């Protein structure tokens, strides 16, 4: 028998199979539309206005959008599905009746999210490459960065989803966490453009670290902070999130 963690992953993949084509379609179509509208449409103006330190706008936002796709997908997959498995379908309660432990539930769930992120990431890279937005062979490490970013975000969000019992809280998470991160963490314009006081908030978001790593990889330049520091920050989110998530699962399932 497969390891219980792998069994959880398998269960997720099996239920995902039904949605695969629809999601593969949107994972591929959305970046194309995005690149055309913002990269080419808005980019035309930015480039005419001098560009970003001589870089064309499409090359600037492509790695940003790549990381933010991973970020949003990780949050999306660790909110409603987790709450749903506790409240509506009782999937986790069913797993408790098997040899699957709490660590397997959290770990298997994270592996599944990393898988989803990788699929979306590869589709996006293909599109970005066709539009000539990738400039360095270092691009090959971006799937690793996106996988790490996805897990780093999904772990604490999973913990959060396992703690709450009403989906109204997700609206708050999106409005105060996900949307501000997406808009201000250096995806669409450099963080140095923000007022000095607000910048630390952008640095605190795991998305910014993902964006920095992806951008330095696709452009072939060094990131703002040492690579190890960016990676360590994301790993810290992953580890703390994982511990919080297993604790939250244990509490929820212990009655």
């Amino acid at each position, binding site marked *: 028998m497969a390891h219980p963690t792998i069994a959880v992953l398998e269960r997720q993949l099996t239920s995902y199979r039904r949605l695969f084509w*629809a999601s593969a*379609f949107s994972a591929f179509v959305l970046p194309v*539309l995005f690149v055309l*509208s913002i990269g080419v449409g808005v980019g*035309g103006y930015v480039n005419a206005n001098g560009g*970003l330190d001589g870089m064309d*706008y499409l090359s600037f936002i492509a790695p940003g959008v790549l990381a933010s796709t991973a970020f949003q997908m990780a949050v999306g997959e660790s909110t409603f599905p987790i709450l749903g498995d506790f409240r509506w379908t009782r999937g986790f309660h069913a797993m408790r009746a098997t040899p699957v432990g709490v660590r397997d539930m959290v770990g298997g769930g994270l592996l599944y999210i990393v898988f989803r992120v990788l699929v979306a990431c590869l589709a996006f890279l293909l599109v970005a490459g066709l539009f000539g937005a990738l400039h360095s062979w270092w691009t090959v490490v971006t799937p690793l960065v996106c996988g790490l970013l996805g897990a780093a975000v999904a772990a604490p969000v999973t913990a959060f989803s396992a703690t709450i019992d*009403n989906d109204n809280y997700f*609206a708050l998470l999106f409005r105060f966490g996900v949307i501000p991160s997406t808009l201000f963490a250096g995806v*669409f314009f450099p963080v140095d453009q923000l007022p000095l006081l607000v910048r630390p908030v952008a640095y605190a978001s795991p998305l910014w670290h993902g964006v920095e790593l992806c951008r330095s990889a696709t452009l072939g330049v060094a990131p703002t902070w040492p690579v190890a520091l960016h990676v360590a920050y994301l790993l810290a989110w992953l580890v703390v999130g994982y511990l919080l998530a297993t604790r939250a699962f244990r509490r929820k399932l212990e009655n």
Partner: protein
Amino acid sequence: MVTTLITGTAVRAGLVSPSRIGAVINRNIGALRSGPSYWLVLVSGFFEPLLYLLSIGIGVGALVGDLTLRDGSVVSYAMFVAPAMLATSAMSGAMAETTFNFFFKMKYVRTFDAILATPVRPFEIALGELTWAIMRGSLYTAVFLMIMVAMGLASIGGALLAFPATILVGFAFGALGMAISSMLRGWQDFDILMTSQFALFLFSGTFAPISNYPTVFEVLIRITPLWHAVEMVRAITLGTIGWATLGHAAYLAGMMAIGLFFTGRRLEKVLLK
């Protein structure tokens, strides 16, 4: 307006009653209040358009600089983008309520089946749900307009005129959303719906004038509804109202009428079988 006209005719014919529509709205208010942190959720909705405006309008705007429109006038990027964000927010506010929530009530929690055990009829459910969606969405557009005035992106007169325009946008897209929801097979279809909505958001002259696109796309965009909404609201806030503005309004009014009529029919078929 068209809703008043349709509703008025329907009321006189004894088909719908305002009090029964009111009951549907009241149920939604009650259901919203039953959740925790209800005020926080409601209030937090105000921040979203503001954040978009700050990020895209000001942040990206600093990179873009000023835009020269087709009529030769020069506007800042924030002035160009803000009305589009406003129109989009009116669209997505109305559609979030009439697609996700509507579908959930129709298929999963079976709210509508329960309502039909009372004297309320399908068309009244449609009208009640739509009115509720607009009430909620209009709170946000009103705040957005105030922010636009405060940031010097619209005059007070322009904002006062733009407000009813956003309500029309909400009605049109809300009716469209309900019509679509009544046809959806399951949650999987939402992926297609979200993709289409996002495509409209990106290509309706929201971020760049559509004259930048090849003619084929330009013509295609002119057929889609959000472009009409964006053009209408933008003409009002930039003060370039003309006959075309009326044309856009007529398009949206027609869309609302068709959407409502279709939804009423579908609900009768689906719920009263």
